[in-house]
């Protein structure tokens, strides 16, 4: 996976939008290095605050870029309430991604688990992880190398639908296959 991430500081846009009252000269300068494992280490230089509130200017991070997967293939599979079982109807989608990943051994996929909004954030993160790992396992059983796959969870943090109806909740219980 050529996972590129940009953590450039957008001074002006963020200061304009930020209600923290951070002064321009308080904004830290970021010196970012990526280690071989993909772990990010960010060194932020900023003057320690003179007052006892002791909070330096906000560290600002930007969106990571995402890659493109197989064309014309759905990338979302849905789950029943409180379930981690991949439904039969999801098989064609998973098989398409398996073929793509086997044909493109250098590509890597993020298998992202999601839950509906009910319950705690951390517990939902663990539930979303179970869904992601179920899809990862399905891909592995179809012959995809585990090294091409990473099962992660967003829990309830990124709902696909904002409403609270059962239809909305069902849209949020999902796994997204992202590149």
């Amino acid at each position, binding site marked *: 996976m050529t996972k590129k991430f940009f953590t450039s500081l957008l001074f002006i846009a963020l200061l304009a939008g930020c209600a923290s009252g951070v002064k321009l000269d308080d904004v830290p300068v970021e010196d970012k290095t990526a280690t071989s494992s993909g772990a990010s280490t960010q060194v*932020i230089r900023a003057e320690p605050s003179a007052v006892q509130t002791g909070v330096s200017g*906000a560290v600002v991070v930007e969106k990571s870029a995402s890659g493109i997967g197989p064309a014309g293939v759905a990338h979302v599979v849905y789950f029943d309430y409180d379930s981690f079982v991949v439904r039969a109807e999801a098989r064609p989608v998973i098989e398409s991604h398996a073929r793509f990943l086997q044909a493109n051994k250098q590509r890597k996929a993020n298998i992202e688990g999601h839950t509906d909004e009910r319950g705690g954030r951390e517990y939902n993160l663990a539930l979303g992880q179970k869904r992601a790992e179920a899809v990862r396992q399905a891909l592995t059983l179809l012959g995809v190398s585990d090294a091409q796959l990473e099962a992660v969870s967003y829990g309830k943090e990124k709902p696909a639908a904002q409403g609270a109806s059962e239809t909305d909740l069902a849209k949020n219980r999902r796994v997204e296959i992202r590149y």
Partner: protein
Amino acid sequence: MKLVFLRMGLLQSLFKLILLVLVVTPTWAQFRVEVTGVGTTQLPVVIAPFKGESTAPQRLANIIQADLERSGQFKSLPSDSVLMDEISRPDFSPWRQLSAEALLAGSVTRLADGRYDVRARLWDVVKGQEKGDFRDTVAAADLRISAHRVADWVFQQLTGTPGAFASRITYVTKTGGRYLLWIADSDGENAKSALSSPEPIISPSWSPSGTHLAYVSFELRKPVVYVHELATGQRRAVANFKGSNSAPAWSADGNFLAATLSRDGGSQLYKIDLSGGEPQRLTQGGSISTEPAFSPDGSALFFVSDRGGSPQIYRMPARGGPAERVTFAGTYNISPALSPDGRWMAYVSRVGGAFRLHMMELATGQVTALTDTSADERPSFAPNSRLLLYTSVFQGRESLMTTTLDGRIKARLTGQGGDIREPHWGPMRK
């Protein structure tokens, strides 16, 4: 209302004025903390406006009054028109007629170097005696902290327990697709943002020293645990293993984090040495283990697991070992928080379809529901174990709330605008 400085002979007419004020003026008109509920025993106190505060950057008396009211242990009597400072000689009789127990007055004075001198005096109204004096000299930007220190001092003087109003809290807001991590005073005000990201930020947790936060950020398209030094903005990823990394909790000595990692499949607890080295796995098996919380003495680790078929809170030795179940009532008990005094565990329990804050007395296992709301999340204790901070949907809005441990007095902290979540109460300031 034109104010004149108090003299002894004015007290009778002042008393009439106070009665008028009692009818027409909400006591917290200039402050945004809303307090609801009635306590069993609330000490009536008078907090006079500080002399000089009308031209100072902060209205100290309002901040002190809101702190004391939020604690649930005080009821402030109307005092907007009281004109005195710490060197006044009060006539106690009108206050006794209002059943006041204590009277606070003070002043704030700008010094030649730009700093402010904050002085206060507390009187026992019943005995008609002075109880003590307070003095603090601070930069203009620290006047709110100084007001919180006065509240801490009054709290200690009148209850015998240290106050915790000068501590700080953290929380996350989501506004227009942007997630912001905030550091604020314990009343939710004076917030400074420490992190701004287009991706979610969850589970911020204060280090025991109050100098660092650990949190989960999704900026790398997956949950990664960071440790962030507040004074410098310096931060590093301390858990960025394959899979999800979440739920950081500090050990009492600040040298380790317990966290949930999925590097070996499933969500399991690990101990992470902040000076480096491989994480040490603490839980085994195929079920979920997450939301670790150390007991205040560091000997036990509380956590949430579905090993019994539904999410329940368990306790195990902090070094690892057999776990015992702690919650038994209900089928969904999550988010344990231990009081610093070791007596209480706050957590969220599903009752019907509602997620409500509950309290367990650890010695007896006795459980009390603290709210009747339906979407309570993430309780944490004040460092003096006297208040809880959590979020809820209150009167139709996502709200940052405090409650007393008996659930009787609740306050909504306005905080920053936007969807507010993931609060955590920091330690006492050193």
